[in-house]
């Protein structure tokens, strides 16, 4: 059950129930949820409605990844019993054209006109707090009862000598390319770096991928990172793990980067450099001091589990404060803020079951705890693993690479977490997320009827392995008792 506010009957005319700074996923979700429930909402954006995700992140990258996958499949046709088309040539302008069309189509859903029609007051300009309950934007002073700061983040500019002078791409401008680079150095082996490195490699670019950690996707399971590493190498990417980029310079038309691994040095010459080494929160220029909101220029705005800042009337959500920067976390945070800010809610971000996915091929998805996290908390954990090559549909699809690993509290059916590496891991993880959200024991997933054949059968197979394992344990226990 939800409460509602009367927009027109506010006891404080001119004062917004919720003022939101930043129209990315968190801000938009919060604005739409609040206005649907009768709140008077102001939404301030200094750039494009929809934020990084829609314009410079998830959406354009997924479009390009899809096309790049098509090219990979064409080259791999023989493996699937097909014939490799002759003269495969990548039409890069067509790839980018499709990306722009799709981006425009999805942008339409969050146009200023639509938002205004739904009752949201949309302002464009730089927001600046004037006090603990007011913001100025484009000369207007807007007062609020509650506010949400969701200004997102921007790419980190790594302190690599010569990088700024040489010029480089980030997710903010890589989708503006009009020509496919022949040679590309990608610095950073996180989700952005791996996804785009693979996509460009499949579009015909000779890609060198440099990661300063010993494996890709630092927080993911070792086996997942290993499979990804193998997949990237198969796509022809030159991989340098545990390697630092120490210097960049321009030589003629080339950009030349010095790489150092332990004590070994090498140089690589490329046409473009793409940097994907993380983000820093957008907190500058907001005059957060005036609002009594503490912040840190690198860590962002600290919030409690209810997403409150140090000013209890001001909340923060999304990349400006969160550790895991994925849009679905932002949307969850946006929902929570509306409940907690406007309806006396006590919703905690930590109570959310939030899966995430890196959209490489294969995809790598995770939800809940990792094994080492469970073990650090002294939780006995057992992992039920099903290889995708055990799954009929994965075999028929020629998508046998990967696995489903479900981590269960040993001796119980409580699902602690899961990692899926598969062609469609981002979809497969949802069944486990649902079970975790609903508090469903793992054994229940063994009883779920599924159409045959599907790749999600892997999850049922893991659950069946759990059921079988429990039966064996009980059987062994009974045998011990009978023998005594």
């Amino acid at each position, binding site marked *: 059950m939800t409460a509602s506010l009367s927009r027109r009957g506010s006891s404080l005319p001119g004062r917004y129930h919720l003022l939101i700074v930043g129209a990315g996923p968190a801000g938009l979700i919060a604005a739409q949820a609040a206005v649907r429930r009768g709140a008077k909402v102001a939404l301030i954006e200094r750039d494009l409605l929809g934020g990084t995700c829609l314009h410079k992140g998830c959406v354009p990258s997924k479009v390009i990844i899809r096309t790049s996958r098509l090219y990979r499949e064409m080259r791999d046709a023989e493996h699937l019993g097909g014939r490799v088309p002759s003269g495969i040539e990548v039409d890069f302008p067509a790839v980018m054209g499709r990306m722009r069309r799709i981006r425009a189509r999805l942008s339409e859903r969050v146009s200023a006109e639509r938002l205004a029609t739904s009752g949201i007051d949309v302002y464009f300009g730089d927001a600046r707090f004037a006090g603990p309950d007011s913001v100025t934007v484009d000369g207007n002073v807007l007062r609020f009862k509650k506010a949400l700061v969701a200004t997102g983040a921007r790419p980190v500019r790594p302190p690599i000598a010569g990088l700024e002078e040489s010029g480089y791409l980030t997710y903010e401008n890589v989708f503006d390319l009009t020509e496919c680079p022949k040679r590309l150095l990608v610095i950073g082996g996180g989700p952005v770096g791996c996804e785009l490195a693979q996509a460009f490699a499949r579009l015909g670019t000779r890609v060198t991928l440099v990661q300063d950690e010993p494996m890709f996707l630092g927080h993911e399971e070792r086996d997942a990172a290993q499979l990804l590493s193998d997949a990237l190498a*198969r796509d022809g990417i030159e991989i340098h793990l545990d390697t630092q980029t120490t210097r960049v310079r321009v030589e003629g038309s080339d950009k030349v980067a010095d790489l150092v691994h*332990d*004590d070994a040095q090498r140089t690589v010459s490329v046409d473009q450099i793409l940097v994907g080494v993380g983000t820093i929160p957008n907190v500058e220029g907001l005059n957060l001091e005036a609002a009594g909101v503490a912040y840190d220029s690198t860590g962002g705005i600290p919030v409690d589990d209810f997403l409150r800042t140090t000013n209890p009337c001001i909340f923060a959500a999304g990349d400006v404060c969160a550790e895991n920067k994925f849009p679905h976390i932002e949307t969850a945070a946006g929902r929570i803020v509306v409940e907690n800010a406007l309806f006396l809610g006590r919703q905690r971000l930590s109570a959310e079951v939030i899966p995430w996915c890196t959209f490489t091929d294969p995809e790598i998805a995770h939800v809940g705890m990792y094994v080492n996290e469970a073990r*650090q908390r002294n939780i006995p954990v057992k*992992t039920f693993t099903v*290889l995708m090559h055990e799954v009929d549909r994965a075999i028929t699809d020629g998508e046998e690479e990967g*696995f489903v690993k479900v981590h269960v509290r040993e001796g119980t059916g409580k699902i602690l977490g899961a990692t899926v590496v598969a062609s469609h891991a981002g979809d497969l993880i949802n069944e486990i997320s649902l079970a975790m959200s609903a508090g469903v024991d793992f054994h229940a997933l063994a009883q779920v009827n599924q159409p045959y054949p599907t790749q999600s059968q892997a999850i049922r197979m893991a659950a069946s392995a*759990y059921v079988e394992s429990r039966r064996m344990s009980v059987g062994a226990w009974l045998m011990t008792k009978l023998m005594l």
Partner: protein
Amino acid sequence: MLEDELLDCLGHGAFRYFVDAVNPANGLVADRSRKDCPASIAVVGFALSAYTVAVERGWLTREDAAARTLVTLRFFEASAQGSTPDMTGYKGFYYHFLDLQSGKRLWQCEVSPIDTALLFAGVLTAAAYFNDATSSEVEIRALARELYGRIDWDWARNGKAAVAQGWKPECGFLHYGWQGYNEAALLYILGLGSPTHPLPSLSYVAWTATYQWERIYGCDLLYAGPLFVHQFSHAWIDFRKIQDSFMREKGSDYFQNSCRAVDVQREYARRDPNEYGTYGPDCWGLSAGDGPGLGTMRVRGRERRFFEYVARGVPFGPDDGTIAPGAALASLPFAPVLALSAVRHFLEQYPEWEESWQLPSGVNPAAPGADSRGWISEGSYGLDQGLAVLMIENYRSGLIWKLMRNSPPIRLGLKRAGFRGGWL
């Protein structure tokens, strides 16, 4: 050929590697049989252990074995230690690869804790075996004590919980530590058992904290992909029925775990997910070893990537179709019937191996080679031959296990790691 005769041939053949590849002047042993190959300190550790087997099997006299051991230990005792690049070791550890003649560091390689541990497993085996009052054997024991006592295991953590992978004078400690289940069990146990500069117990806890207990193909096991991980520490330590806290929690032990690892390897070979068409119930064993190194090429309609020397593993790979026949042989203590069956299969396929009785590091029937049987690794690797000698002997007589059960550092290290039960 009867089992005993076959194992005699294989054991003796493998041992001959150490006679052929040793530099008698300093006891160092070449990493592999290729010309001008450097010495590997890990291979020296296997050699020192293999000498004891050779005495028991009548391949060397006790005096000869003691003399070979003494030459080796004297070399390490006299070799230069320090933080400059041209030394043989630092802080009691040794560089991974040494010049076979001069004993100096080669290839800008790292001071290697794991390879030092393998070396000292051999040193301690020798100290346990040569227990007579002759001057040679007294000296062997004294040198072993001195060299082992020199090692600053605690330094190798670089102030962190887990031991670092290595150190170089040019760049200091390598960036990551030993984590996850791997061959480092021996390293931690030797480090914990040191009388002078031991690792703290928390380092073992940190290492085991990254373990994963998994059910794969119906087998519950502590997962590690390459087979050698389930074998190296077992070449010296008898893990039967002794348990640390992790294995107590799981109701298993590391020996049983290695048995299950063999089952998983065979099941993977049966399934052959990458459709090499060459794996089977008697053709299994993905491990660290030599490979075709051909890069990426299209074979029978599929793009294949053939690696060089790499740690291959199941079920998550990498898997380029290369089998390590020695890994199947070294599974003898864990699955004797299966291991022998696999070895007989390999010898049927490659009868020329009976000339030397040394199994090559790898074969890959899916990769192009000299004949229709595909690629075959040339020559022999010391690690493979050493593991073969020790595992065959452990299966037949338990010699190395028995010796090391009475080695004080091993006993102390196991106890400090929390092992209890069984022979301990």
